[in-house]
């Protein structure tokens, strides 16, 4: 690895992490003004945050919405991947294009169209609508993750299991599932993460539900506040923890699979 390559990577990482580092630094800065020079270290903003009931409610709401999104993205991604890799599936090309639709249509257009159709048929906007719409947006990502692993899977293993008397369901549970479990947990995390990160869909479909992102957005239009900084850092840390845990889990599974092989 040359010196030029290394400096390119360092500059790129600096660019990608600069805003996040600045955000973190100011969440510990002992001043209500978001300005340099720094004034000293404080945990005051985190204390204020912990006492703010609204934010805590928003946290819980976002978390409760993100869980079903992760599960739905994983289940539908699994079904889509199984279909995509099924032998003799004539509509594979068309189905693959269909799967790209939620990814290629801008989220804003999609959510506004969904909001319109829902108000016409009398489907109330709120948590359910939000969960369904976010799952749909997460579906292409989940499918890509799962099918990337599944195309490398040797179908003959399934056939062998079937020949030895396993039902299709048993073959799936005992042969395929252990192999794709890391990908499934990845798909679940992507659903959760995309849901936590989303603001656009929530703006149109949340109704009276108030996830954290929506709350921050309305505060943010008015002013910058240090306790908002602290909250963003907490959200960031939680997301990073989620990424870290699922990555560790994935690696452990892979090691275990390698050891078994």
């Amino acid at each position, binding site marked *: 690895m040359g010196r030029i390559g290394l400096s390119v990577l360092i500059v790129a990482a600096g660019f990608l992490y600069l805003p996040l580092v600045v955000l973190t630094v100011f969440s510990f800065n002992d001043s209500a003004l978001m300005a340099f020079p720094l004034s000293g270290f404080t945990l005051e903003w985190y204390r204020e945050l912990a006492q703010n009931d609204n934010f805590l409610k928003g946290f819980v709401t976002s978390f409760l919405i993100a869980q079903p999104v992760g599960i739905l993205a994983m289940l539908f991604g699994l079904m889509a991947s199984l279909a995509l890799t099924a032998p003799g599936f004539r509509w594979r090309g068309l189905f693959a294009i269909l799967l790209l639709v939620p990814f290629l249509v801008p989220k804003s257009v999609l959510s506004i169209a969904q909001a319109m159709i829902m108000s016409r048929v009398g489907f109330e906007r709120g948590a359910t609508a939000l969960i369904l719409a976010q799952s749909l947006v997460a579906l292409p990502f989940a499918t890509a993750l799962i099918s990337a692993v599944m195309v490398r899977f040797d179908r003959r293993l399934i056939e062998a299991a079937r020949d030895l008397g396993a039902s299709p369901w048993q073959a799936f549970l005992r042969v395929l599932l252990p192999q794709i479990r890391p990908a499934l947990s990845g798909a679940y995390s992507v659903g959760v993460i995309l849901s936590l990160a989303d603001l656009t869909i929530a703006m149109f479909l949340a109704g009276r539900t108030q996830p954290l992102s929506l709350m921050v957005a309305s505060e943010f239009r008015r002013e*910058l506040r240090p306790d908002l900084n602290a909250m963003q850092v907490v959200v*960031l840390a939680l997301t990073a923890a989620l990424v870290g845990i699922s990555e560790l889990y994935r690696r452990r599974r892979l090691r275990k699979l390698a050891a078994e092989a």
Partner: protein
Amino acid sequence: MTFRQRHLALPVAVAIVAGCLAPLAVLVAFSFYEVEDFDLIPAFSFRAWGELATSATDWFLIGKAVLSGVTTTVFTALLGYPVALALTRLATSAKGLAIIVLLTPLYTGEIVRIYAWRIVLGGEGLVNTVLQGLGLIDEPLKFLLFSPFTIGLVLTYNNLPFMVLAIWVSAEMVDRRLIEAARDLGARPVDAFFRVIFPLTTPGLAAGSLTVFALSAGEMLTPSLLGGTSGATAMALVDNLFGTAFDWPLASALALALLATLFLVASAMAGLLLRLKGARAVIGRT
């Protein structure tokens, strides 16, 4: 008929048709409806489309969305190539870590990123303070925040990881020996890039461009929260027509016109990139 694995496509297809295609189809229907006393009345009226066709503002905003998507694509590609090529040189063990480093910023919420940039670029933000500290400027640079510059910068930031990832995957598949052969035969690094690496990575560039364009052209939050007076977007106007003005036919027509324009530009862009010699060599000599 017994159950087959491929039948699992059905529930997924139904979900996408009901959740994506049906709403878009309804948008088409609504664009021909009429509005009376804040009520949407089924009709076959060209009022909305006529209004859209003659509105200079609407077409200006649609053009702006295309421009914003194309600019973001170009910037991410220019920045993405050196990063992606540097990544291919990493040791295999470091690559797993590099993926996490690259993707983690994507996991932060849209609002977190927007918020963080406000602190970096503001009048008393990081950039201005450092530049003033170095004595390079006397007054804070005003154009950093709430300007077209801000929108371009943040959209590039938001989408760079997607572009890097797409080019990187493509570049990993280039046979290193081809580059060495070119160098041995006397090609300078620049020539080796333009005559060997670039042509062979155009499929990745095309995939990255499509992704970045789709994600950035329809974006309305970054412009509206960081663009200041230049932050008007077609989607914000659609939102306004939908929510405040209750002109659903016009909102539908505008959203559809935007979608169709973006689709045309994206197909043209992907088609152009894939027609290059290298892409044909990679994808298959049919």
